[in-house]
């Protein structure tokens, strides 16, 4: 897919923004700072989705990940007091840096080899972006119809999984002792 004009600016801007946020997220000493960087990275990824003309996914990304998941993270961080980490000057990284670098290098080489081998499977680099006249207006509709026709079974399985998780969390939270106190 070929990028044009403002798309280039937005793509590289957002990509570097996401990378910087992700690195800061790992390096942050305070858990709350890390959660904030995570929020930045997720918003940047939502911007990338908009560039791909997947507006619905971008909106859902912010609604669920930033508005839901990060809020829950911060909730947990607030309840479990983790401020000690800032005052105690613990080492952020252990001495396994060499191992980490070796792993990253191996993954990079593997990616390059895979890309070279499977290059013929990828769409040509100069292929224009998919432009259909109603593509913009019907993005949500396309997601919806795909979800309820072709992806109906995975969708239902996912909802079942979530239901199991909800029931499990209620059982975990509602202990015998709690029931007795409310007798």
């Amino acid at each position, binding site marked *: 897919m070929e990028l044009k004009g*403002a798309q280039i600016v937005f793509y590289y801007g957002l990509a570097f923004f996401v990378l910087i946020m992700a690195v800061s997220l790992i390096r942050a000493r305070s858990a*709350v*700072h890390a959660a904030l960087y995570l929020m930045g990275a997720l918003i940047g990824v939502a911007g990338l989705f908009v560039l791909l003309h997947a507006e619905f996914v971008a909106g859902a990304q*912010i609604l669920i990940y*930033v508005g839901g998941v990060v*809020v829950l993270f911060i*909730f947990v961080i607030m309840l479990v007091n983790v401020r000690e980490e800032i005052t105690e000057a613990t080492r952020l990284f252990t001495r396994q840096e060499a191992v980490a670098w070796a792993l990253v290098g191996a993954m990079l080489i593997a990616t390059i080899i895979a890309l070279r081998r499977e290059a013929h499977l990828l769409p040509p680099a100069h292929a224009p972006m998919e432009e259909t006249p109603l593509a913009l207006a019907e993005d949500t509709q396309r997601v919806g119809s795909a979800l309820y026709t072709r992806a109906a079974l995975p969708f239902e399985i996912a909802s079942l999984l979530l239901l199991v998780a909800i029931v499990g969390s209620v059982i975990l939270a509602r202990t015998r002792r709690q*029931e007795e106190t409310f*007798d």
Partner: protein
Amino acid sequence: MDLFWAVWNNPVVSEYILRRLPTIVIVLFVILTVAAYLVYAERKISAFIQARLGPMRVGPYGLLQPLADALKLISKEDIIPARAERSIFVIAPMISVVASLVVLAVIPFGPGRATITDINIGLLFILAVSSVGVLGIILGGWASNSKYPLLGALRSSAQMVSYEVAIALALVGPLMFAKTLSMVGVIEAQMTDRIWYIFYQPVAFLIFLVGGLAETNRAPFDLPEAESEIVAGYHTEYSGFRWALYFVAEYTNIVISAALAVTVFLGGWHFPGMTKLAEPGTWSYALLAVLVFAVKVFAIVYCFIWFRWTFPRYRYDQLMSLGWKWLIPAGLANILMTGAILVLAQHWGLVETVRTDTGERLVSVWPWGKLFLMAASLLIGIPIVWLVLAVINRRSTDFNLRVQRQIRLPERGEEEIFAEV
């Protein structure tokens, strides 16, 4: 200089930045002024409800009070508590205010240029961005490093996360008729169908109104800042300009909630017979439309202020059970009902799909289609939602699993027990 003209003439820059700038500036100015005057309106209306006069000193009828308040807040000393988490303490009010001002970009204040922009995920965008606003409140409360703000922040985040679900579910009903998420599209759909969606979706409107009250932390859902319990909630430690930022965010959110209700349920800037007064596409028409929108928004905002002095504050468990056991099941039942009604209407040929230049629109056939949809939502929808809620909440106040597991009949007769009590 060449670079400047190249950027200036760039179609992207001119389309998305330069042409929108005047509207953006006007909207920001008007909304910030409105937010300031909402404080005045709230004080005045509260005063009249309690048989007082309210602010009277600054200017005629106290009309310059917001200006005096703003001056006071800006010139106040900016205090950051010593043990506060400094950087987050500073960022938190900014997150709140940015999240509420960004939403203004897609609110349809009027036709054409009066709206800043129209995107195809308008409603989803509003829900998404306003859900980020919660972060500002939680972080502000946590960063203050003080117990009342932390309690307020915990309460408000739990409250906002739960009521967001109810609001989103309430919006699905009218969207089934509108067939689009774009805010302008929703208004156009109502214009094409010549009806306001409140007549098709009375249940959804009620859920949205209650959810909107809770989402903006207003009484009777003002637990996050309950004065009698936790001083001022999440902004207890804030002062001066940062406190003013929280206030701007709060009152902008009230306007946004009202604007959302007006757009989705009350036909937005459209009013019957408006085209007779002014020709569509002219300046006077746009001005009239903006005026109609403003009047509708203020009617709803007035109700918000009115409710504050009508209902006592909810207890925390009552708030949660209202959200999870009443509003969310009602929203789900409403979606199912609306789907069934629409399928039936299509089956009987009471609604038809019309292609306009902006997309497909659902139009009900006059008069039987409209009558059917209204009657179905009122006479069938409300009783069924009522039934669902009654079944779900039949024993919800028992709050005791053990008793429910081993229900034993009382050894003595019920009359005896009652006589004892």
